[in-house]
Structures are given as C-alpha cells and as structure tokens.
C-alpha cells in the first residue's frame, strides 16, 4: 500500500454526536468503529460533541457516559488509532489520563482561535502520557492568517505534534482557507490539518484546497453527520480525492457503505443546508448552536434565524450555548413590548 498523501481523521463519533444530541449507544459505536476501521481510516475520534466532560445542561447530557463508549471503541478497533478531543475549561487533564489508560493515543486540545495559551497545561499532559497531541484552533474564520500563525506557534512550543484549524462555523470561502493554510504551512515545523463544515456547501472543496496548499491532515464525518449543516462527508472527500489522484489510503466504496448502511439509519434527519444551517455559515456562528437554538426558539416562541443572527452580532464563541437562552429571552421580551406598543 502506498503512503497516503494526507491523513484522514474521522469525527463521526465526536462532532457527529451534536446531530444526535449526544445520544450514541454502545452498539452504534461498535458498528461505526468497525466499519471505519475496515475502510482503512487511520484515526477515529470519539467523545461528547463538546469534548471530554461536555455532558452538561449547557451542551446536552450524553445518553451513555462517554467513557463507556470510548472504552468500547478502544476494544473493537484493530488498526485505527482512537482519538479524543478536549476543550480546556470544559474537560480536565484527569480526563485525558483516564482515556489514555483505555487506549486513546491521540489527544486533540481544542480552543477558540485566539486563546492558544490555555492549552499549555493539557498539551503537556498529553505529551507526558506519550499521546500524540494535536492543537485545534476553532472558529478560525475569526482570526487573520498572521494571528493564527502566532497562536499555532504557541501550541507548537508547548509540544503539539500537529496543528489544526477548524472552520467551526462553516464560514470560510476557499480563498479564506488557502491564505490561512499557506501562512501556517510556511511558519510551522509540524504538520497542519483542516476541519471543515458544510454550512456554505464548501466543506469538500475547501478540504481539497487545504490539501493542495500543504495541509497533511483532513477531518470528516460519515454522511457529514455533525454540528450545523454538517461536516465534510468522508465518503465524498475520499471519492473526490480519488478523482484528483490524491492517495488517501481509505476505500471510498467502503466509506460509502458505512455512511449508507450504518450512519444514515441513525440520523434523526439528513444533513441538509436549510435556512438555519446556511445562516450559521453566513453569520459566522458556531455550528453546534443549531439544535440548541431550535429548541430555545420553540420554547420561547421566537425565530431560530433571529437567535442565530443575534449570536453572530454578539461575537459569541464556541461553548457559550447559555447565551442562546439569553438571546431567546431578550427576543421574546422585545416582541412582547412591540405588541404592547401596537395596541
């Protein structure tokens, strides 16, 4: 087998968890891990959608404790490495220690794209445990190429083996991706990765562009299952890569089988770019807010689109799901006041 031109990290069991409101069960995990592993995926990420320790009122409680699911994934994988994701401020270094014991060998330490210095503690713990540490800069559309370079260099100095930028709002054009990847590849000694979302229907093309500019890792999820309008669908990425003659090391047809036969039947709805999904990309709002905003809109009888637009105006960052309730209450109050004024 030839060496792949980029490494594919599958996040169906982590970012995909958002689309299922974190209701994964052990049998789902077993089937997905076995399917991806057979297809040749090298790294499979699993955790609550908001990372280790994400199960909460704010982000939604997991149906099954994530560590039970992680242990299951480690048990059934044959070749693929198991990865986890952790946001400092939500998960703890102790969580890394625990999952490392289970067999998780890759730790992605995720942070808003301007706050890299809060990852030092966790990157160092991951390295100390002998794990591969990946620094993961979220909402990368909110920082300039120079700004991202500065943040990525910090993570590199803490010992990160790979740096990722994540288009968590699915808000980047191909040009946005290219300038950022280019600047980072030139500045870093370690490999770069890109995590794309599909809110503007750019996930696959942006991922390919990132590869062409020098990114050596790409993220995706089966059937695009994920936050917002979804992630970069791995089966499509693999198929398009093949068309370009890019070696992926994975079997596109096997990935299509996983998407069609295992993941789609689990999905409460297909990943489409509807109005709310598109607004996320258009207004640059964190993708996981989508379903929380839908629930708050129903609860307080206000518009989901209005909630998302206001969150964009407030420049909220990933993790501030509580602000969805705040905005919904304020919109409800404004509507009530406007109705009174009309009488």
């Amino acid at each position, binding site marked *: 087998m030839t060496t792949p031109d980029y490494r594919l990290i599958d996040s169906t069991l982590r970012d995909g968890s958002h689309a299922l409101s974190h209701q994964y069960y052990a049998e789902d995990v077993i089937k997905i891990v076995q399917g991806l592993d057979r297809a040749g995926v090298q790294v499979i990420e699993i955790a609550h959608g908001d990372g280790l320790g994400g199960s*909460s009122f704010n982000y939604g409680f997991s*149906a099954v404790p994530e560590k039970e699911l992680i242990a299951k994934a480690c048990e059934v994988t044959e070749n693929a490495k198991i990865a986890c994701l952790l946001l*400092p401020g939500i998960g703890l270094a102790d969580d890394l220690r625990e999952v490392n014991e289970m067999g998780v060998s890759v730790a992605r330490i995720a942070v808003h794209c301007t706050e890299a210095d*809060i990852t030092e*503690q966790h990157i160092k713990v991951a390295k100390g445990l002998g794990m591969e540490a990946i620094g993961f800069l979220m909402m990368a559309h909110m920082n300039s190429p120079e700004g991202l370079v500065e943040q990525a260099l910090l993570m590199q100095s803490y010992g990160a083996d790979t740096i990722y930028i994540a288009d968590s709002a699915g808000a980047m054009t191909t040009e946005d991706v290219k300038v950022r990847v280019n600047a980072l590849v030139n500045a870093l000694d370690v490999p770069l990765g890109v995590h794309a979302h599909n809110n503007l229907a750019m996930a696959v093309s942006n991922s390919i562009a990132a590869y062409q500019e020098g990114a050596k890792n790409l993220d995706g999820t089966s059937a695009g299952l994920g936050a917002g309008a979804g992630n970069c669908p791995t089966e499509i990425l693999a198929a398009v890569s093949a068309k370009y003659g890019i070696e992926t090391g994975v079997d596109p047809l096997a990935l299509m089988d996983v998407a069609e036969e295992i993941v789609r039947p689990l999905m409460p709805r297909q990943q489409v770019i509807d109005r709310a999904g598109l607004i996320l990309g258009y207004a640059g709002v964190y993708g996981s807010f989508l379903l929380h905003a839908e629930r708050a809109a129903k609860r307080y009888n206000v518009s989901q689109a209005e909630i998302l637009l206001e969150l964009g105006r407030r420049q909220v960052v990933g993790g*501030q799901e509580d602000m969805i*309730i705040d905005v919904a209450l304020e919109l409800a109050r404004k509507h009530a006041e406007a109705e009174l004024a009309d009488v």
Partner: protein
Amino acid sequence: MTMRCAILGSGNIGTDLMIKLLNAEGSALELVALVGIDPNSDGLARARKLGIDGPHEGPQWVLDHADDIDMVFDATSAYVHKAQAQNYEDAGIMAVDLTPAAIGPKVIAAVNLLEHLDAPNINMVTCGGQATTPMVYAIRRAVADLPYAEMVSTVSSKSAGPGTRQNIDEFTKTTSTALREIGGANLSKAIIILNPAEPPIMMRNTVFGALPEGTDHDAVLSSVYEMEKAVQQYVPGYRLKNPPVIEEGPFLTPGGEVPHRAVVLLEVEGAGDYLPPYAGNLDIMTAAAQRVGEAIAAHRTQGAQA
C-alpha cells in the same frame, strides 16, 4: 483594631484590590504594600504613584516583613500559593487566598462570610465561584434536594490574566467543589469560556439547577431575586440579565432525571477601579476578598474587647 495588609501579586487582581482598599473609607484594613516580582509592572508603578510601597521581591518580602504584616491577600497563582501557604502560617500571617489553590476553607461572601474567621488561611474560590455559588445556594434553600447544579462563566479574554490561563483546570475544579460544599448541590460541574470580542464583553455567568418533582417554582424564583440583592450589597454591578426561568425537560442529569431546570442568567459589571467595567470578574473577587478582610478585622476587634 487595624490590620496591616500586604497584597501579593501586582497583576490585574492585586492592583484592583489595592485601589479598593485605598478607596475604602473608615476601613480597618491598612495597606502596607503591593508586592510583585517584576519591578517594571504597571501595578507596582501605580502603587508607588499612590504612595504605597511597591517592592518586587515577591513572597520572600512578605515573609521578611512578617512583624509588620497581619494579613496577606495572595493574588499570585495556585502554584505559588501552594508553595508558600505554610510559610505564611508559620510566620503568623493570616492569608486570604485569591488563587484557586484551595488550601484553606472556602468562603463565598454572600453565603458563609462569618464561618471561618479564625482560620489561618481562607480561600476565595474563583471569580466564577463568587458569582455563581450564591445562586446555587439560593436554589438549594428553596428546594428539598438539589441533585445537580452547573455554572458557565464567560469572561473577556482581556480580563483573564496568565494565572487563570495556566490554571484553568484548577479554576473549574475549585469552582465545582464550591457549588457542592457551599452551594449545597449534590453533584456539580463548572465551565469557563474566554471570549475575545472587541469591545470586551461583560463577565457573564449562567447557573443551571436541577429541580426534582414537586419543587415550588415560585419559591426558587423569589429566592434567586433575594440573593441578587444580597450580592449587590458588595458588588453593585451584579445583576440578573434576564428574569430567572424554569425550563421543562426532562433532563437526564448526573444526579438523576429531573422534570425541570432553573436557569439564572447573570452579568457582572465591574466598578472600573483598575480595569474597565467589563472586567466584573476581577471586581467580584476583590470585593469579596475585601469583605472577608473587613469581617476578620471586625472579628478580631470583638475578640480583643471580649
């Protein structure tokens, strides 16, 4: 009885506390020095300008002047405080710890201010803990049982100094412990988020409380309003950003499934003593520490008179 105080740490928190102590009228706390480690720090420059001694020899300076110092407000970092706490106690200096080191008993000014006045070391938890534990306690006193409580604190990136950034696990762990030990929740979780928006956002805190079957929702809401007033007595910018709400679940919390949750959305506007008003996270910490210092001084005065 006047207590001679030193503030250790000339960063955002230490400098803000210095200004609060200097502005307090009729205070029993006499500020002797703001002690840093960087002779060129902005905080020490301000101290000297205000006529306060501003040495840069760090904890050693405090220990060397033990005869002239009754109380140290430690605004360094959890690591530094852990390394020095025993030295302060041995030197007979009472320590009010503003780091999340959590060596001494935890005090939340609006809840258990008078409980640990004789302790040699008092821990002020965290800014988020000072802001949210009172509301967890407010929910707890209105219900028979609080199976689970959670707080989310968002602070502007500009107001989060290196101490917070390097100790983020200590922040969440210490805060979460306070929600149980002082707030009264059976289980708890704490989350902190940094937001870099410009202009900087005000400190925001959200408290979620799991409400079991049979909870008197009106009692929960009025208890929350009452607590808002209690905290406002020492942090005037502490307020409910929206009315507290009870949301319908069910919610599968770590403390079991509950039919409802209380959501308390708070904002803390700072007094603008050192950093601008967005940095309410500094104010709630320094205002609480000042209140604890005053309470200790009053307690010692009573002790001396008795």
